[in-house]
């Protein structure tokens, strides 16, 4: 799973790609955290357009990035979720603490 990044002004967007499970979550987490540390953005956007499978490890990943980002005073949002990803995000209650971007 590779993660592509784009920085636009104060916003860092991470484009996730492929399946997110316990096996892939570790390297995704490390990649995002090191990029956040390097660029110190005011906002982190996680783009799920190309994620076709995600289990609760993905929920843990988003929750963990939210906690890490808060330390830098950085806001987190998620966007472009396919319906399967949105289903698990919604049931997890993440919507209460993280912005679900609608276009």
């Amino acid at each position, binding site marked *: 799973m590779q993660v592509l990044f784009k920085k636009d002004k104060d916003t860092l967007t991470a484009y996730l790609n492929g*399946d997110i*499970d*316990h*096996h892939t*979550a570790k390297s995704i*987490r490390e990649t995002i955290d090191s990029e956040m540390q390097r660029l110190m953005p005011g906002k982190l956007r996680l783009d799920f357009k190309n994620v076709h*499978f*995600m*289990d*609760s*490890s993905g*929920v*843990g*990943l988003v*929750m*963990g990035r939210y906690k890490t980002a808060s330390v830098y005073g950085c806001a987190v949002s998620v966007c472009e979720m396919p*319906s*399967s990803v949105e*289903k*698990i995000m919604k*049931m*997890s209650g993440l919507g209460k603490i993280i912005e679900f971007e609608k276009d």
Partner: protein
Amino acid sequence: MKTVNEIKLTVDAKSVNEAYCRVAVASFASQLDPTVEEISDIKTAVSEAVTNCIVHAYRAKKGKIYITVSVTDDSTVIVKIRDNGIGIQDVKKAREPLFTTGGDDRSGLGFSVMECFSDKLRVYSKEGRGTTVTIYKKIRGKCDDDS
């Protein structure tokens, strides 16, 4: 209900096999002509159960995961996932949302997801012996011709 078809898989408890397990189960279940959402639900529930064997039951040590998938004459997929790991002391508590004995990035939502994405979930565990999780998913399909 009667089992009409069944497969058994034995898989090493390695995280690289998580994807294989859910895809194999979903592929066998596809004979019941499920919807895209039903297939996705099965994959997610299986992924949770298999991950728990790797992360919790064997604590990243060597072990085997035993999976039996059957389909019944009333269009139900039954997935039994068994490990010989450490077992669960209090199953009721383990099934509560957000309960986890895992580290930072575990959400404690695995059992909630399995329950939500299936029709019935059975968990049997014995400390020091292992755990068996059984996921029941009724396949309604597109329900084109029976209204």
